[in-house]
Each structure stands twice: as C-alpha cells, then as structure tokens.
C-alpha cells in the first residue's frame, strides 16, 4: 500500500475540522448560517486571509513571517500621517503606502536572505521596527498624545463597502488574491522554486535557483499583501491607531499552519490556507455566539495548532520507520 502523503492527511483533517465546527455552530445557534452572519464572517476572515497569503508563501520557503500584521499597521499609519499632516493627493498617498509595504518586504527579505538571519527571529525584530515606526508616525493632538485619526476620504471609505448581495469588497479581493497566489504556486516557475527552496535548499541551489531571489520574492509579495490589507482596513475602520493590525500576524500564522503549511518548508498551499482562515474565523464567531470567553477560544486554537505540529513532526519519521520494518520483514520472507 502506498503511504498517504502528509499534505493529503492534513487537508482532510483541516476540512473535517472546518465542517465539524460549522455543523456544531449551525445546530446550536439560530443565527450562525444567516446570510448577514456569513458575509460579516467573510469580511473579518478576509483581513486575516490577505495577510496569511504572504505568510504562507514565506512558510513554504522554509521560513516564517511574524511581521505581516505590524507592516499592515505601519502602512495604515503612513496613510493617516500623510492624510493628517500634508496636503498630498490621494493617489500620491496611496503610492507612498504601496512603497512602504513593498519596502517592508524588501527589508525582511534582505535580513533573511542576504544577512542569513533565521526568519522567525528576523521578522520578530523587523516587526518591532515596523511597530516603532508606527508610533513615530502616529497622529498626535495639541497636547502631544497619540490619537486615532479619522479617515474621511470617500474613496477610501468606499473600500469598506459591499455589493448589493451583501458580500464585502474585501472578501472578493481576498479570494482573487488567493486564486492568483495559488496559480503562482502551482503553475509558474517561481512557484516550483518556492517549494524546492523550502523542501531542500542545497538541492535547489545546485539546480541554479537563487536563495536570495526566492526569499526576496515571497517577502515582497507579503509586503504587497500588507499594503492591500491596509487599504481595506482603513476603509473598514474609518480610523487608524497604533494597535491596528497588531493581532493579525499570529492569527494568520495559525491559519497557515492549520491549513497545512509546515515550518520545515516545502508543504502547504493557498487552498489549505483558505480553509485554515475560515476555520479560525468560524471558531472566533461561533465562540462569540456560544458565549465562550476569548480565553477558551485561544485555548482551543492553541491545542489544535500544537496537535498539527506534533503530527507534522512525527508523521514522516513514523511512516519511514514502518516502511523500513516492512521491507526487513519482506526480506526475511524472501529468505535471503
């Protein structure tokens, strides 16, 4: 019998988790499957999802990215700062924001690939830098204290809107970006190289694939995701403060892991991350409706992530040992 691949099993587990959770909440509450609740869940999920796209790509290269949410917050604050203190045109401000998002990616990519710093530590630190910049740029009142800035620009506000059927623009943006990222991963050279780099770096490099180029690519895409997420976030909130986006990174990393991305690299895809994001959101929402506390919700997602990590850590080793034994027993029967 051919062994099932880690990816296949993980996909099945995450789908089952999502379906089971959805069924439980549907049966136990009246409002869970209402159209209003679904569209609003998909809106919240979209913000985690957009950040998770970039993070998943980083994880597939064998890395991580803990700074995605903080970069989003920084881009939001760049917008608020220019909006409040300058008379730049909207287009100008948006372009500066785009540049800020991309530069955050280049910076991460540089630290991770050129300086060869471990992704986890590197992005933990760069995230702090992004947060520091957010505080520096924060809009202050006449006494010098940080205030949250109202963004009254109608174009930006319209980004928080929805179609007549109730689905929010941000949800559509998330799904389109997920699709594009999936095509990138599965149908292009870059995608193959991203998997190759994460799966076995030296072999990939011997095939002429550049570590620096691949790392730069995924972190710049992650920076772009932070920019897009930031624009929709401003539209959704209508304000910006120093805490915006800070919680997103960890939720997005959790979603990637639940969806099948593995920290050792080479595994995971956008469909998995989509499922992971939906799972995180259903859990969050259902828990609210269940009157469970945030603590209970955190414990549930924490336990599930640990179980997934345990599975990742031991599955391949276990299957390999089993195969060695089976081969040995077969040899004995062969009578050599």
């Amino acid at each position, binding site marked *: 019998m051919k062994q099932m691949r880690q990816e296949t099993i993980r996909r099945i587990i995450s789908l089952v988790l999502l379906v089971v959770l959805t069924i439980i909440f549907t049966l136990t509450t009246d409002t869970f499957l209402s159209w209003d609740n679904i569209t609003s869940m998909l809106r919240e999920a979209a913000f985690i999802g957009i950040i998770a796209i970039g993070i998943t790509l980083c994880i597939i290269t064998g890395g991580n990215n803990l700074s995605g949410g903080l970069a989003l917050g920084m881009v939001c604050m760049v917008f608020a700062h220019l909006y409040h203190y300058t008379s730049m045109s909207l287009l100008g401000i948006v372009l500066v924001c785009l540049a800020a998002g991309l530069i955050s990616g280049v910076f991460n990519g540089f630290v991770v690939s050129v300086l060869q710093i471990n992704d986890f530590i590197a992005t933990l630190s760069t995230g702090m830098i992004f947060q520091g910049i957010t505080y520096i740029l924060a809009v202050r009142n006449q006494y010098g204290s940080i205030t949250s800035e109202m963004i009254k620009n109608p174009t930006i506000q319209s980004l928080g809107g929805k179609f007549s059927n109730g689905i929010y623009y941000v949800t559509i943006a998330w799904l389109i970006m997920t699709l594009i990222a999936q095509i990138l991963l599965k*149908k292009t050279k870059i995608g*193959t190289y991203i998997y*190759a780099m994460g799966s*076995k770096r030296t072999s990939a490099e*011997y*095939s002429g694939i550049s570590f620096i180029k691949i790392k730069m690519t995924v972190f710049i895409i992650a920076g772009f995701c932070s920019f897009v997420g930031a624009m929709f976030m401003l539209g959704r909130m209508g304000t910006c403060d120093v805490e915006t986006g800070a919680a997103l990174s960890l939720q997005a990393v959790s979603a990637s892991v639940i969806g099948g991305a593995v920290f050792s690299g*080479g595994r995971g895809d956008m469909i998995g991350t989509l499922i992971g994001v939906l799972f995180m959101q259903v859990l969050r929402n259902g828990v609210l409706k269940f009157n469970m506390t945030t603590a209970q919700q955190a414990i549930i997602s924490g336990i599930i992530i640990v179980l997934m990590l345990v599975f990742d850590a031991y599955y391949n080793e276990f299957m390999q040992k089993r195969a060695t034994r089976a081969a*040995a027993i077969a040899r004995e029967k062969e009578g050599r």
Partner: protein
Amino acid sequence: MSEKREVLFEMKNIEKIFSHVHALDHVNFDVRKGEVHALLGENGAGKSTLIKILTGVYKKDGGQIFMDGKEIEINSREDAANAGIAVIFQELSLIPTLSVYQNILLGKEISKFGFISDRAEKKQIQDLIDNYGFPVKATDIVETLSVAQKQMVEILKALATDAKLIIMDEPTASLSSRESELLFKIINQLREKEVSIIYISHRLEEVFNLSDRITILRDGKNAGVIEKEDIVPSEVVKMMIGKEVSESTASRELKTSNAENVLEVKNLTHLGYFNDVSFEVKKGEVLVLTGLVGSGRTEVVRSIYGADPYDSGEILFEGKPIKPTVRRSVANGFGLIPEDRRTQGFSPLLSVTKNVALTNYDKLAKSGFVKKADEDEIGKKAVSLTDLRPANPNVRVGDLSGGNQQKAVLGKWLTRDLKVILIDEPTVGIDIGAKDEIYNIIEGLAQQGVAVLMVSSDIAEVLHVAHRILVMREGRIIKEFNDGVATQEDILLASSGFVENQEVA
C-alpha cells in the same frame, strides 16, 4: 565486450596535494564509450578525491582531463555538467515534496512567460521513463518513492541532461538485493545506449560482475587496471592492499582466554537494522565488529548501550539478563565512545573538566551541589590518564585537535569504574601519532580487565587492536576470526561477501 571501444574520457597524470600530502600522485584513468568502469581502493586511497576533481568540487594541482579527445577544464559543478558528467549522489539530491518530472526539469522548466507547460513537461519525462522502462511515473511525488526508485530518478535526471558519463558512488549501499538487481539491469541498459559509467562500491562481488574494467588506486597512486576477462578476486584484493605477505594477528592472542564473559548477546534482532546477532566479550578482551558501512555494526552497539531499541534477543551482563537503557548502562559500568564525536561525544563549548564531570555527577554531586575542587580533581585525573595535550583541563574541548578531543571523550569514561566500553570508529579523522596513543589507551583498558567492544572499518586498525574479530554483512555476523590469525585480505573478502571459498559467479 571483447572488442575495445573508443575512449570517451581520460585523466592524465592527475595530481592533488593537501597540505604537503600527495592525495593523488600522477594518477591516470580513462573510460571508454558504453563502458562500466569500476574504481576500487581502500578508504583513503584517493577514489573520492579523484571523483571530486572530475566533478569540479576540487581543483586539480596538475595533469590534464580530456573529453572526446579534447582537453577540458573542470572548475565547477557547471563545468562538469556542461562536459556531460553527472553524479548519482550517495546522499540523494532530489527535492522530496516535488514530483518526478518537476525534479528532473528543476531549473530547466518548459515555460512561457514564467508559466509552466505541465502537459509538455509530463509528456517529455514520461517518454524518457518509458524509453528506459523504469518503474516510476512522471507524476509520482519523490518522497513517496523507495530509495531504489529515487536513485532511478537521479539517473533520469542525468540522462535528461544528455550525460555521457555517469558516476555512481556506492549506489547499492541502501538497496535490498532485489532492488540492486534492478539497478544492475538499468546499468546494462545504459551500457547498451553507449552511456559510460564510473562505478564505485565496496561490494566487490557486484563490482566483479558488472564491470568491463577495473582501475585500482592505492595510497593516491595507480595500482593497476584490469580487463573483465582478467579479473581474479584474490589478485584484485592484493592490489588494493598492496602487501604480498599476509600480516597475522597471532601476537595479539588473548592470554586470558578462559576469563569469564562480561557481556553476552544472544540472537539480538532489530528488524531492518541487524538480525540474529550473537557473541560474547570476555573480561580483558578486545572484540572488534568490522564490515562495510551500513552493515549494522553501529546499530548493534547502540542497542546494547540502550540508545536504540531492539525487537528480540537477549543481552546478559555478568551472567544476568539486562534490559538496557542509557541510564542503567552507565550505572552498570558501561561507557560509549560514539561514532560521531563532534555531535555525540562532547560539548564543544565546555571545558575538559566540565565534559568529564558530566559522566561523573552521580558521584561528584550526591547532594545536588558540586564542589569545584572535586570537579577540578577529576578533570586533572582525565588529563593525566589520557595524556591529553595541552595538559590543561580548563581548555574548551572544541578548541582541541581531533585526537585530543577523542582523548577527552575517553576521559569521560576512564574516570569511572568501567566494566564494558563500547567504542565506535575511534580514530576517524585523527592523525597517526594520536591514533597510536588511543590504541594504547584501549589496550590499557583491556589489561585492567575492561571488556572492550569496538567497531572499526579500518582493517589495519582492526588487526592491530583486536583479540577477536567478527565480520558483519547486511545485518548479520557472517564470519568470526577467533584463532588470532586473520589477514587484511580475509577480512576484506568476507566484508564484501566472499566467504570461504566462494568465487565470482
């Protein structure tokens, strides 16, 4: 293969010098078109240096290389690949989570504007596979394949680049006999398609069966080239070893041969690693397990120590059955000098004293606290027992030379009351002077009555140190030399599968 084909590849007067040592001394080597050419020699004879030169890992210090009659320079892996040279690595270089076709075409994708034409790629690779009839599919994911299949993918990868010369380095080391047969069939197919192969293996039997020619290296020099029809196994082995007169071990016969058994192993089996292993080690005896790498020697020792599990069989210590765990073994007076001292033998950032103290804290720290004076004393004791240099117990072990690092590892156990010491390849990467000192320490331990079970691949070392020798092959003990008389040839032939009077089929 009686007609002589034309020469494809030639190396002339190749020289390589590592810090004043001639690793290769005017070596000549050539491969004909469609020939399987085996490269034989003992460890350190220069085989891997030669291969590294022709694949661009090392730069040669002298000599010329010709491909198809034209002189070429090989300074990098790319140069080698461009010249049509491909290596099937012992450590497979495939990407586990990608498919067969993605692996073969990695870096050379068929694409338009960056988008891969999956269909064209799959078809091209499936055609290649069908052409050779390998039992793999283009869409299989590499990590789901067996070792043998992965090797086939490596070979396909070489063929996809139109390699004219494929180097196989110990290709059967991790294959079952049935898988090996399949590989041999593939090699014969390649030969028919005019692909040349350089074949390196310690398994002489398969070398003799497969090769059209054999080049033998010894001490970095040519020791001979033999055509298939002239192969005589015992002659080949003599050329590898280079001594006409057999060296015997009669001088090391155990005087206390009626001493009691300290360690007894009965029918020990760990499926997939070793099978039905039985032997005993007497008080004051040095028993050496030898054989090829991967024959299960290290695994036996680790199971006896309790570092790995086993499935069935019995281990007796001083006549009583024991179920070893590492803690119990240490408490019973066992010590282990592991194969890879850098990762398993010592902590490089700690001093000699601290390293030695690690195995002695049961006595040093009965209350949980350690007296620095006690610790220092045991560090000094270790230094003097092993004649460690510099004679300073406060040096970090990581800063010592290889030989002195090994002495520090020995010191960890010499400072205890040892009954049994398990030693795995003690002198790998250690210079000759320090080797002798380590042999003296081992001999001294035996004289004090410690039972020594040692694993070694270095045949000269085995003969020098052992009272008794067990040869392992594919997880089983296949030969015992217990009369104190064995020669390098005997051991080499037994390890490679020629037991007693068995000749090439």
